[in-house]
C-alpha cells in the first residue's frame, strides 16, 4: 500500500485554482519531492494532506486513512515541518518537544526516551534547555524536524525545509533528512524550489507548475529524457541564431529562454567544434558565450514548463505587484 494516494485533487481559493487536478502516489520509505516555483501549489497540497485545508474536489489518503473522514488517524500518522517557523519561542527546545508529545498522547517513559533520540538525531542535546528565542535559524529548523518526529509518524512532510538558510546549514539539514530516512525508515515528502535539493535528496520528483504535475519520475530518469548534454549559447541577435541552430541535424531539442539558447545534443564535446564552423559573418549573428554541461533538473523544468524556475518566480512576483 502506498503511504500517500492522491486522486484528481483540486483546490480553489476565491475562484483561483491553486491545485489543478493532480494525482500521484508516494511509496513507503521513499523521499518524494514536489519541485516547483513559489505559488505552484506545493504548500496547498501539503496542507490538504495534513488536514489543514479541505480540498474543493478529489480525494486523498495518507497511510490508508481518508483525509476528510479520518482526520485524527491521519494526524496521528504524520509529522509536519512548516515553511514558516511554528515553535513557541518563549519555551525551551525540550518544552516544545514535551508540548508536542503530550498533544499526541505519548506516555511519560516514551516521551523521555523519544526526546533523547530525536534531540540526538538533530544534534541539539546540549541546547535543549535554552529558550528557542535564542536559537539560530538552522537550530530552529532542526528542532522542528525533531518535533515532527516525536510521535513516531510514518510520514514526514517538510515544506521548504531549507528556505532562508545559508548554504552550509542547508547541507547539514540535508544530511539530517537522509539520516532520518534511513534510521527511522520514514516516508518523507518535501517541497522545494531548489533544484539541487530535489536532485540530492529525492528518490522521485514531481515537477509542479500552475497547480499541475508536469512530470514525475526519478531525477535521473527525468534528466535522461533530455539525454546527452546541454549546450547553452548566448548569441546576438538571438532570433537569427535560433533559426540557424534549429536546422542543425545533430540538435535533438532546442529551447530559448531569457538570453540563452539551449541545445540538447549527444556527446556535446564533439559538437562544439561543429558550432564553431558556422560562419557568423554569413549568418549575421555573434556568439558571446558557450557553456557545455550535463542536463540538470533546471533543464528538465525548462523542458516541461517552457520556463526556468527563476523566470516563473520573477513573472509571478510581477503579477503580485500589479495586483497590489
Amino acid at each position, binding site marked *: 500500500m502506498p503511504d500517500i494516494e492522491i486522486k484528481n485533487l483540486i483546490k480553489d481559493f476565491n475562484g483561483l485554482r491553486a491545485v489543478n487536478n493532480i494525482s500521484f502516489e508516494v511509496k513507503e520509505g521513499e523521499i518524494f519531492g514536489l519541485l516547483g516555483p513559489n505559488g505552484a501549489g506545493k504548500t496547498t497540497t501539503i496542507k490538504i494532506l495534513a488536514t489543514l485545508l479541505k480540498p474543493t474536489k478529489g480525494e486523498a489518503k495518507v497511510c490508508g486513512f481518508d483525509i476528510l473522514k479520518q482526520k485524527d488517524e491521519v494526524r496521528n500518522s504524520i509529522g*509536519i515541518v512548516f515553511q514558516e517557523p511554528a515553535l*513557541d519561542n518563549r519555551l525551551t527546545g525540550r518544552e516544545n518537544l514535551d508540548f508536542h508529545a503530550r498533544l499526541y498522547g505519548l506516555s511519560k517513559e516514551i516521551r523521555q526516551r523519544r526526546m533523547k533520540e530525536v534531540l540526538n538525531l538533530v544534534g541539539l542535546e546540549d541546547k535543549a534547555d535554552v529558550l528557542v528565542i535564542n536559537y539560530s535559524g538552522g537550530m530552529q529548523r532542526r528542532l522542528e524536524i525533531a518535533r515532527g518526529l516525536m510521535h513516531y509518524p510514518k510520514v514526514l512532510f517538510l515544506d521548504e525545509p531549507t528556505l532562508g538558510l545559508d548554504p552550509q546549514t542547508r547541507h547539514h539539514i540535508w544530511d539530517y533528512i537522509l539520516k532520518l530516512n534511513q534510521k527511522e525508515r520514514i516516508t518523507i515528502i518535501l517541497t522545494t524550489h531548489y533544484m539541487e535539493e530535489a536532485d540530492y535528496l529525492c528518490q522521485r520528483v514531481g515537477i509542479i507548475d500552475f497547480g499541475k504535475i508536469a512530470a514525475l519520475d526519478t531525477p535521473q530518469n527525468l534528466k535522461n529524457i533530455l539525454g546527452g548534454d546541454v549546450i547553452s549559447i548566448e548569441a546576438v541577435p538571438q532570433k537569427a541564431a535560433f533559426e540557424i541552430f534549429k536546422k542543425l541535424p545533430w540538435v535533438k531539442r532546442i529551447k530559448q529562454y531569457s538570453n540563452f539558447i539551449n541545445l540538447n545534443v549527444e556527446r556535446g564535446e564533439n559538437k562544439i567544434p561543429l558550432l564553431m564552423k558556422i560562419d557568423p559573418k554569413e549568418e549575421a549573428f555573434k556568439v558571446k558565450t558557450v557553456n557545455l554541461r550535463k542536463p540538470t533538473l533546471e533543464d528538465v523544468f525548462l523542458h516541461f514548463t517552457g520556463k526556468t524556475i527563476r523566470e516563473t518566480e520573477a513573472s509571478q512576483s510581477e503579477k503580485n505587484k500589479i495586483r497590489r
Partner: protein
Amino acid sequence: MKSNNLQAIYIMWLREMKRFLRSKSRVVGSLMVPFFFLLFMGLGFKSGFNLPGMPQEANYIDFLVPGIIGMTILFTSTFAGISVLWDREFGFLKEIMVAPVRRSAVVLGRIAGGITTSLIQGILILIISLFMGFQIISFFGLVLAFLFMFLISVGFIGFGIAIASKMKDIHGFSLIMQFIIFPIFILSGAFFPVTNLPSWLRLFSYIDPLTYGADGLRASLISFSQFPIFLDLISLFIFGFLMVILGTYLFAKMEV
C-alpha cells in the same frame, strides 16, 4: 483519544503558566495601570468624598477597588483569549491545529490558563489595595469575590478567542481594545455608580457584562450593590456560557 484531550487541556494550561512566569514585564505592565488608578483616583478623591448613589459610610477607595479588580480581570482575560492571534502570527497555531486533539480541548486549556493568570493578577491588586486601607467585610465575601472573578474571566477569555478567530492578523488589535474593551470598562461603573448616567447611556451599561461583574464584586467585598447579587451571578453565568460556546465554535471553524 480521550486522554489525549485531557493532556491537551493540561499542556495548554502549563504552557500559559510558563509563559506567564517568564514574562515579568507583562505581569508588571498589566498591574501598573490598575495600580495607578487605585493610587491616584483613590488618593485624589479623598476619604469622605461621596458620589451620589454611594453609601454614606463608604470611602471612595472602597467603591473603587472592586471596580479596578473587575477591570484587571477584563483586560488580562480578553488578552489571554486574543493571544490566539499571536500564536497565529508566530506560527505556533499551526502546531496546535494539526494535532490529533479536539479543538474544544485546546480552547478549554487556553481558558484554564487564562483564568489562572487573570485570577493571580486580580488577587495581587486586591492585596495591594489592602495596603491602601481597603477592608474586606467577610471571609465568605472573599470566596464569593473569587467566584465573580472566575466568571468574569471565563466570559472575556471566550470573547477574546471568538474575536481572535475572526481576525486575520494582529493589526486590528488596538482597534478592538479602543472600541470594544475600553467602552466595556468605562460603562461598567468601575469608577462611579451607573445610576448616575443619563438613562440613554445607562442602557449601554445594562448590556455590559462587566457592569454585573463589578457590581457582584462590590456586593461580595463591601456589601454594597445596585442589583440583587443573584442577578449579577446569573447574568455573568449566561455571558460566560455563551462566550465559551461562541469562542469554541469559531475557533473550531478557523483555518490556518
